[in-house]
């Protein structure tokens, strides 16, 4: 997994609540058996005017000039500002894959759907929760200031604006540790092989039907 320590990056505002995973990456792209290449299809239905299919040359498609991420000023954005309940809907990990592949490393929103939130960490994408008022302020400043860049420091758990305002955020110690060090969960769990075997042996006694073939 990609590490995350500190980043100063251009912010882009996506001013909608309840952005669902079908909007983040429409299902036709879920047919891919790879983890990469989803970036050009991120927010596909909003970003393009013509229907998208896997395997297309997306650079030849008709761009929707009204969609916020298509504005030249947000090109290269790494921090996505979002509203409540971002990532609701399906469990598709293609959603964080697409956001990462596009270039985002951080999302800032007042709340997330649980599965999306969880999936993000497993891929080195940092979903930050800030109070609604703080998110409102970031939206306003981003929209008012071309080239608005935020500095996100995971070790310090802070988001800093260009004018030097600093917002502190909360994050689980375990998730923070894994992200800072780029650790793979499976490797960590396999350090507890004995505990898993002991559990299985006990359960086999208590509830043998769970192990019947």
């Amino acid at each position: 997994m990609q590490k995350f320590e500190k980043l100063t990056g251009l912010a882009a505002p996506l001013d909608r609540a309840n952005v669902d995973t079908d909007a983040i990456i429409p299902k036709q792209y879920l047919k891919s058996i790879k983890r990469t290449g989803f970036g050009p299809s991120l927010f596909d239905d909003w970003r393009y005017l013509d229907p998208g299919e896997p395997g297309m040359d997306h650079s030849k498609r008709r761009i929707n000039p009204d969609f916020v991420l298509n504005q030249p000023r947000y090109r290269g954005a790494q921090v996505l500002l979002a509203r409540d309940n971002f990532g609701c809907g399906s469990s598709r990990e293609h959603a964080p894959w697409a956001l990462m592949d596009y270039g985002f490393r951080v999302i800032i929103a007042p709340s997330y759907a649980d599965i999306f939130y969880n999936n993000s960490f497993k891929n080195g994408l940092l979903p930050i929760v800030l109070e609604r008022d703080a998110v409102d302020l970031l939206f306003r400043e981003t929209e008012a200031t071309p080239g608005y860049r935020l500095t996100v420091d995971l070790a310090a758990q802070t988001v800093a604006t260009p004018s030097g305002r600093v917002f502190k955020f909360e994050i689980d110690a375990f998730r923070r540790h894994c992200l800072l060090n780029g650790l793979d969960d499976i490797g960590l769990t396999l350090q507890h092989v004995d505990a898993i075997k002991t559990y299985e042996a006990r359960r086999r006694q208590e509830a043998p039907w769970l192990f019947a073939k």
Partner: protein
Amino acid sequence: MSGKTLYDKLWDAHVVRRNDDGTCLLYIDRHLVHEVTSPQAFEGLRLAGRPLWRVDANLATADHNVPTTDRAKGIADPVSRLQVETLDQNCHDFGITEFGMNDARQGIVHVIGPEQGATLPGMTVVCGDSHTSTHGAFGALAFGIGTSEVEHVLATQCLILKKAKNMRVRVDGALPAGVTAKDIVLAIIGRIGTAGGTGHAIEFAGTAIEQLSVEGRMTVCNMAIEAGARAGMIAVDNKTIEYFRGRPYAPKGEMWDMAVKAWREMKSDADAKFDKEVVLNAADLKPQVSWGTSPEMVVPVDGAVPDPEQETDAVRRTGMQQALRYMGLKPGTPIRDIALDKIFIGSCTNSRIEDLRAAAKVVQGKRVAKNIKLAMVVPGSGLVKAQAEKEGLDKIFLDAGFEWRAPGCSMCLAMNADRLGPGERCASTSNRNFEGRQGAGGRTHLVSPAMAAAAAIAGHFVDVRGELE
């Protein structure tokens, strides 16, 4: 000390190890696998040279991409075909039992799990699919996971998780005629919102839930995720236990008796404490219809499309305006005046035998309205399809002008050839009405099977309570 909730009991029974930071290593009894969210996980295992921890805990089927017509011809779309073939190959290489596309037991993963008895009370059940919450209907802890977690389960039979909070949604009293499990859950989501259960495991309780069949309970738990809760669950009772008797993967003989004894404990203690509680009165419920692009945007069938101008919260108001624009609806339009183009009866929410019986009862002896371009029934599994055919339900649907298809996810998410065209309006028994969910530009209204069937006959929404009299 107060007693334990059902969720507490399920959680505690599966803790392998408590980590210092408050997370737990939780043991997973059953892992269901399908073609869409697993290929990258198998690839990860191969790259790391990791074997499966416990092969027999896994059961796989292809459901999202499979065609619902002419299966003998295979899958026309090469990208879909590759994904299904990749699942076949992975199951073959790793030794996992798979109900392939042409197996009589194939179907939507959340329909076949319980049908086979592969899902049992007291289990932890996961699948790389958010509607895994469905299996909670049997007093199991069941939730959807992402692909990294699929890989984690395959390699370790465990997950690293933080316990959620306890929430109870009680539906008290008796359900009025014509009001179904689907209406209950849509009304709950309308009430608490799509983030109402975020961070919580929801237990559905109350007399109206107890009176539901197990199929109805699955419909309710299926949509727990639409209320933001990763897991939904219902206590075990006699109906739950009887449902599993004789199922292929269910225990037999002495083992059955032993299991039943343990299953009877799968309920919240009388003095258990919940962090959040919501109570609905069943007698107040009416058939529900969604009008927008989020499952919380629902109204009773005798209501009208709401007016964003009446909404005081700015973010919500914008959301409503965007939804109305996408749905092509005007505020104040009576729901019954909304004309439809297509009807979809299927999905892991409503494709079980009981759902098909309810729909067939409404269409029997009638004809699909002229303005309906396509009305289709997609059974949840090959076994559901066979049962329906034994009961003659296929005939009823076909005579009425419905198409009778082969099992799979189909137009619930339109990964196969079944989809809405831009602007087409559909009454659907599925669970998500997001923009583009059933096809780019398609407009979805979520309803119960009986309501979808009645809408097919009328060509627009009707109050099924009147139809049933």
